[in-house]
């Protein structure tokens, strides 16, 4: 019978900061988004103040000051390195791992030499804490859904000492163990179960199912009828019968974004073009490093949020007929999109480039092997008159990109949007080889050693406004931790 452990890092970004700065221990600490605008990670002390994830700093500045909350800019270089160290450490316990997110992983522990799951959990917890200074919560159970639940219990109840095991003993069904688990299931609201969204929870409630125990004991027939196979799966998973296997292949990311708040507003097109080109190069580098391709590029420019009645955001996206990882292709699209969005005499304070519709190279090779050039596919020949660029332009004052994206008013541009179309497969392969070389050179000689001319000279004006950023302790020789 499979046995899963879910390892979840507590307040991961904050823990990474604390690992290199003991002054932050036991103090309220919050990490801000890349433009220092919103709160993206909170220490338990900050959570206790009732501060929610994603809250803009200016809205709660008085609370932050009153409680002397330490605010830090996000240091993604550090978090990424610490994340890979966490995962490597976990792999030493079990090689069967599903990296679920930057700070969470499932492992299968039934094939390991550990006989006592609780002991394994404790050792894992101690190892991550002493090797990396990262505190974790661990849930162990025979299914991933139960493991996730056990992890929640471990996190919220100190008596578990960070490790909660929900197992029915290996030799037959131990009635007391099952009773204990059922008791916990009875206290676990449906909406907190992994994979149960608000809609599902509502439907459960309408049918008198409020806890995990209710679902476990609900009739299979009813679950299948109302929720389909996923409802039935949930029942099995909660009963300790593993249905969801480990997903060991990494999923492609949903989106890759690079956004920055400029140190001072930009109101000339040259600087704006260069900044967008720089951001585009960055997202493309990330895209290729993950062996993925993207089909859509979003460009967004906005003015200062502090001046709320004049706040002005514009965004547009271009979707190619096929996914690509070619920087030049994206640069071309980005440049043309920006030129349409940009308005004279507007002081832009922030810009973002986002890639979406991301797929792995593997999946593309199988399905699109013959038509990998994004500019030229059988479906859409970009001949004159064909339009496949949707274009949105709008004003709004809302805070989160996600909310806003629903409101984009898409206008179809009837003008053809295609550069020198390259239909030659050989050239596509040459481009791929070129990028491979460029990325390899930059990896050895340093970022931007080779770059597209349209990115201009690196200028401090669009450097991130990360005023409270900690050093990149583990990835830069000149930013190491100092000891005296």
């Amino acid at each position, binding site marked *: 019978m499979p046995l899963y452990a879910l390892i979840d890092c507590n307040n991961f970004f904050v823990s990474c900061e604390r690992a290199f700065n003991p*002054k932050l221990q036991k103090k309220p600490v919050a990490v801000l988004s890349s433009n220092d605008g919103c709160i993206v990670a909170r220490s338990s002390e900050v959570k206790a103040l009732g501060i929610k994830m994603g809250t803009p700093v200016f809205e709660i500045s008085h609370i932050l000051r009153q409680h002397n909350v330490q605010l830090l800019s996000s240091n993604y270089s550090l978090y990424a390195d610490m994340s890979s160290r966490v995962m490597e*450490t976990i792999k030493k316990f079990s090689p069967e791992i599903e990296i679920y997110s930057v700070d969470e992983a499932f492992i299968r522990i039934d094939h390991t030499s550990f006989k006592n799951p609780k002991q394994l959990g404790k050792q894992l917890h101690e190892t991550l804490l002493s090797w990396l200074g990262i505190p974790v919560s661990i849930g162990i159970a025979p299914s991933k859904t139960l493991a996730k639940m056990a992890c929640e219990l471990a996190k919220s109840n100190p008596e578990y000492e960070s490790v909660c095991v929900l197992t029915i003993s290996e030799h037959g069904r131990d009635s007391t163990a099952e009773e204990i688990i059922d008791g916990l299931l009875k206290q676990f609201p449906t909406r907190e179960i992994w994979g149960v969204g608000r809609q599902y929870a509502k439907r459960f409630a309408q049918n008198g199912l409020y806890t995990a125990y209710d679902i476990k004991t609900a009739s299979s027939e009813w679950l299948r009828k109302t929720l389909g196979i996923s409802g039935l799966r949930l029942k099995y998973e909660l009963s300790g019968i593993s249905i969801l296997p480990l997903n060991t292949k990494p999923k492609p990311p949903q989106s890759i974004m690079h956004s920055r708040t400029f140190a001072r507003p930009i109101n000339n097109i040259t600087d704006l073009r260069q900044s967008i080109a720089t951001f585009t190069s960055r997202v493309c580098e990330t895209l290729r490093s993950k062996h993925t391709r993207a089909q859509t590029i979003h460009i967004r420019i906005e003015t200062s949020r502090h001046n709320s009645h004049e706040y002005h955001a514009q965004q547009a996206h271009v979707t190619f007929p096929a996914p690509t990882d070619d920087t030049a292709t994206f640069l071309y699209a980005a440049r043309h999109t920006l030129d349409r969005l940009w308005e004279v005499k507007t002081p832009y304070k922030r810009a973002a480039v986002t890639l979406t519709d991301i797929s792995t190279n593997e999946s593309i090779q199988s399905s699109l092997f013959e038509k990998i050039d994004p500019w030229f596919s059988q479906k859409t020949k970009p001949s004159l008159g064909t339009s496949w660029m949707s274009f949105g332009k709008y004003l709004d004052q809302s805070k989160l990109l996600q909310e806003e994206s629903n409101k984009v008013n898409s206008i179809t541009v009837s003008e053809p949007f295609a550069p020198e179309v390259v239909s030659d497969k050989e050239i596509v392969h040459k481009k791929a080889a070129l990028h491979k070389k460029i990325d390899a050179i930059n990896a050895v000689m340093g970022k931007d050693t080779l770059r597209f001319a349209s990115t201009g000279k690196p200028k401090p004006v669009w450097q991130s406004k990360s005023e409270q950023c900690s050093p990149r302790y583990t990835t830069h020789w000149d930013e190491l931790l*100092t*000891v*005296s």
Partner: protein
Amino acid sequence: MRTINSLSPLVDGLVRAGFPGVVESATETPLDLNKHLVSNTTATFFVRVDGDSMIKAGIYDGDLLVVDRSISANHNDIIVATLDGAFTVKRLYKSQGTIRLVPENPLYRPITVQDGTDFSVWGVVTWVLHKTHNTKLPVRTFRA
């Protein structure tokens, strides 16, 4: 985690007549300083020394320390510790229940860790890297 690229073997494909087979089969894995200095990559961190409190132990201002956080600290080990919210590198003395952090410089005094002091061992220093020549690193040649 960034690791230093392995060095290329010092043997090129051009082997003169004589005993080619011998030379080729004698090509071994080149020495990798990274592997030599770091035994547990996930738990090893590099830190920079600031100050002269450890000069008698050969640790100078600006030196680079290799710190392994997976090793448990024993008496006489050189450790990086956190003490009242600050990092310090000192020699660890453990005797009869008392812990002392001992500098290797007569100008500094040993610190006895009192009960209630915010103290913990961060990691054990396994290597000291001291630069002896004032040149910049040579530009690495790139091979595509």
